[in-house]
């Protein structure tokens, strides 16, 4: 059996071993290498407990035997191989399941609360433990998207977008548990499918089926208050007009987000992702795909854009590339429309994708051939997903919602994994 010269290194002081090359069998796999490291650590540290490790060879996760991997990655076996090892990411486990009466169209979680929008025309606020706290009712049609605007102390602002062509801004007082509609944003000529709040928390953008993007102010001071007796809507007194309208898409806008305070990014059914200047309202650049985009997500950590489309692929884009349609990476494993992608908030390599094939997949972009984990906790099509940053520093959570055939059995599943690495 052939042997390889390998040198192991890690970024964690706790698990560091001596910097000497080892001769290891070429056919060894992740578990073998992990055992080797554990043995070495046992020699070094007396009270070492067994830790599962994962291995990176030139930035790519080792998934097959070392020899195979190096052959496919075209790495010379003559030289000493540098292998980085990290603590293995343990499989996320479903933690909680929140049942909903109707399909959940969107979910947004922050450190304390989870906000969901539903097809029963309401939005709901849940605590992280899965307790229903508040039902926000006011729309005359299906709620398509929800977003937290800001939370200062006990009162928080939240947004709901609906099929009835309006976006509502609500103020919620968590202590008194009262919700009040601040104002109603009207102006779209189609269902409002997506909203995104800008990083300064003063503006938000909405994308609609009518191919338009509109930027609205989220601050109550700027509103033109128009008193209007509204018959079918109970208490919305103030109407708001958009600050800016961005048009350019040829088809319905499916997803919108802010990459920074001045830049907007929108994905559409016309097979394009467009970047807009939020100050001037001009289009900055355009990324062209070949299929309908359902969702996009941007990671400020790695400055990449991830898109999910109807052709079952998750694609990574560099929004800064000026030459346009450059797909950095395609993540292919889903078998249905990809309806949700979301970058991890803390780890610049991880993203989660949900699809109509009932699967949620956790990806590490360092191993693009296969996902890290398939989360098959759902019995129905996944509609949306979000990460939450919990109070405990080294725990992360993932909120995913899906729809079920039987309408009253819809659920949110909270999945939890242990151990973020950078402690």
């Amino acid at each position, binding site marked *: 059996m052939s042997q390889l010269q390998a040198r192991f290194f890690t970024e964690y002081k706790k698990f560091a071993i001596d910097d000497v090359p080892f001769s290891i069998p070429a056919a060894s796999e992740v578990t073998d290498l992990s055992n080797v490291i554990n043995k070495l650590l046992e020699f070094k540290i007396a009270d070492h407990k067994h830790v599962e490790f994962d291995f990176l060879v030139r930035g790519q996760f080792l998934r097959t035997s070392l020899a195979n991997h190096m052959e496919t990655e075209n790495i010379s076996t003559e030289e000493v191989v540098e292998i980085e090892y990290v603590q293995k990411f343990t499989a996320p486990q479903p933690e909680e399941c929140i049942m909903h009466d109707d*399909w959940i169209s969107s979910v947004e979680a922050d450190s304390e609360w989870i906000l969901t929008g539903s097809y029963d025309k309401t939005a709901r606020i849940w605590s992280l433990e899965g307790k229903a706290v508040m039902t926000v009712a006011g729309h005359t049609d299906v709620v398509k998207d929800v977003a937290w605007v800001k939370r200062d102390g006990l009162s928080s602002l939240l947004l709901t977008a609906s099929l009835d062509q309006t976006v509502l801004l609500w103020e919620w007082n968590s202590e008194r548990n009262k919700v009040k509609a601040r104002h109603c944003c009207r102006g779209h000529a*189609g269902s409002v499918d997506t909203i995104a709040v800008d990083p300064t928390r003063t503006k938000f953008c909405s994308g609609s089926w*009518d191919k338009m993007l509109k930027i609205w102010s989220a601050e109550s001071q700027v509103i033109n208050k128009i008193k209007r007796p509204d018959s079918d809507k109970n208490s919305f007194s103030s109407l708001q007009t958009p600050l800016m309208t961005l048009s350019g898409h040829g088809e319905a806008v499916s997803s919108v987000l802010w990459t920074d305070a001045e830049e907007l990014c929108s994905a559409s*059914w016309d097979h394009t992702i467009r970047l807009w200047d939020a100050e001037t309202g001009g289009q900055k650049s355009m990324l062209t795909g070949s299929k309908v985009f359902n969702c996009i997500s941007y990671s400020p950590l790695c400055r990449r854009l991830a898109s999910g489309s109807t052709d079952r692929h998750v694609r990574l884009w560099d929004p800064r590339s000026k030459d346009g349609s450059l797909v950095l990476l395609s993540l292919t494993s889903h078998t*249905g429309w990809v309806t949700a992608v979301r970058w991890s908030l803390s780890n610049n390599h991880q993203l989660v994708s949900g699809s*109509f094939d009932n699967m949620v997949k956790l990806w590490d972009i360092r191993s693009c051939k296969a996902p890290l984990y398939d989360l098959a906790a759902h019995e129905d099509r996944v509609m949306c997903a979000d990460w939450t940053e919990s109070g405990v520093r080294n725990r992360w959570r993932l909120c995913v919602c899906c729809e079920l055939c039987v309408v009253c059995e819809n659920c949110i599943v909270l999945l939890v994994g242990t151990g973020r690495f950078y402690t």
Partner: protein
Amino acid sequence: MERRADCSWWSGGKREGRRAPGKRTGPVKCPRERETKAVSREGKKGERPAKQTSYRKATETDRIGEKSIKRKGTQGFVCIFRRTVQDKMTGSDVRLSDEQVDLVHRLQHGKFGDINFNEYEPAIDFFSNEVMIHPVTNRPEDKRSFIPSLIEKEKVGKLVHAIKMGWIKPRRPKDSAPLYYDLWAKEDPNSILGRHKMHVPAPKIRLPGHEESYNPPPEYLLTEEERLAWEQQDPEERKLSLLPQKFPSLRAVPAFTRFIHERFERCLDLYLCPRQRKMRVNVNPEDLIPKLPKPKDLHPCTAGHSSLVRSISVAPGGQWLVSGSDDGTVRFWEVATARCLKTVEVGGAVKSVAWSPNPAVCLVAISHGNTVVLMNPGLGDRLILSATDQLISSYEEPTEVKDQPVEWSLAEGTEHQQGQRLILTHPRAVKQVTWHGKGDYLACVMPDVSSNVQVVIHQVSKRRTQNPFRKNKGMVQCVSFHPIRPYFFVATQRHVRVYNLIKQELTKKLMTNCKWVSSMAIHPGGDNVICGSYDCRVLTNSSTDPEHHKKALRGVAYHRQYPLFASGSDDGSVIVCHGMVYNDLLQNPLIVPVKVLKGHTITHDLGVLDVAFHPTQPWVFSSGADGTVRLFT
């Protein structure tokens, strides 16, 4: 040449004056003279070795001889007897021998020095009037012939000057390309079109075996039974074409009786053998089979209908889909999420639904039983919805009421709340509804062989109904409006008739060549029609598709932007074809099946009942007898 000319001149006898310039100058000598002199010299040499001294002596004696001859008259004897001669070089006296004296005497008398030389040998005539190609003499070239001539120098000088002045161009370099070259030298012999591949050698004659021998081994000779069997066989069936026979010697072999016959057969073989290799496109048979999508690719709408879904239609914006089912409900779906947003009970099996193609109004025509309901589904832009309601409510009753075959009435109460706006009651069951491209006219089909009111056209804004046809031309299967021009397509069982609605005349009659047309769709450009028929065929306006479907076709649809059309059949499959239509109408459209989509389960021997395309995306919807609507992307 020159020499030859000389020869001729010499042979002509004019020996003087005619000499090649620079070659032969000096005293004219007859060749014969020269010959004789040469011979005499030879003779002298043979006599005594030519020495410088002796030569001088000879010349001296010559001079002496002259002197002595001069004196001869007076002192004849003196000179005869004087043999001693003074050699001026040495100053000594030399006494001549007898032979030398004799020679002097001979020379003094004008005779040849050599005694043996015969001056009077018979003459040989070298020169004749015949032109010779070789010189008569082999005399070496004169020295002067090697000296460059002035004339030539002058000529060369002129040429050099001309070259210097550029009047004469130096010689063009020869182009290296050969005049003739191998046309096939660069050809890849391994390519499919290579010449060597195309070469088909003529079939070879089989070499004769033992049985053809005049003296075959005894085991090759046929026994009596074998021979009888051979004779009874047909000549084509015989294994051997001739009977093996044994002869004692080759001499005893008679003439071969079948010779002509055999030559003829050989010629026939050569004549019939293939001489050209048939070029076959290398097609992998696997490629011809349309690829099946994975069942997981299919995106079934949740089974909302409890009975077979007869008809589907997509909203012009592509956001909504309406489906009508035999369970008496019409459902409205959101395409992006496959969510059923609305269910409307109409109270009867829904035969046909059609979304108005006009994006400015939101109306859906639903036919069930005898009635056609125009419904405002309440989906989409609120302004459009209110505009639609306004359009319907703004109708004013005309002053004179015409007798109409159809009763128009407004929906009220719960029906109005459901979204129903107008109810049209027809005399018979309505099978199909279809909209004109502008969304104002609506055509309904009531198939009945006995009646002449099979097709009616409604105008929604004026609530008017007209019967376009007075005569019954057979049972109408389906109708369709031309998307741009005022044409109206009516498909009966065997024919598709095209009527001009403005001129009110029959424009065209298309023969479909099928037994029973089931459905029809018109290309958005308006130039092509496809028909689906119950005998498993898809027909375009000029060609018939091979039978891809196993069972009767139920629905066909064109895509609005992409060159695609789809057909759904009772075998539960939807075939999406790429149809390339050429501007040249004589050229058959190119139809390539792209995909076979299977997802519907066959219930009651019915599979797919209707197909529709998304208006902008290359997505096809199909409704099936299993109560589902499926979206294939």
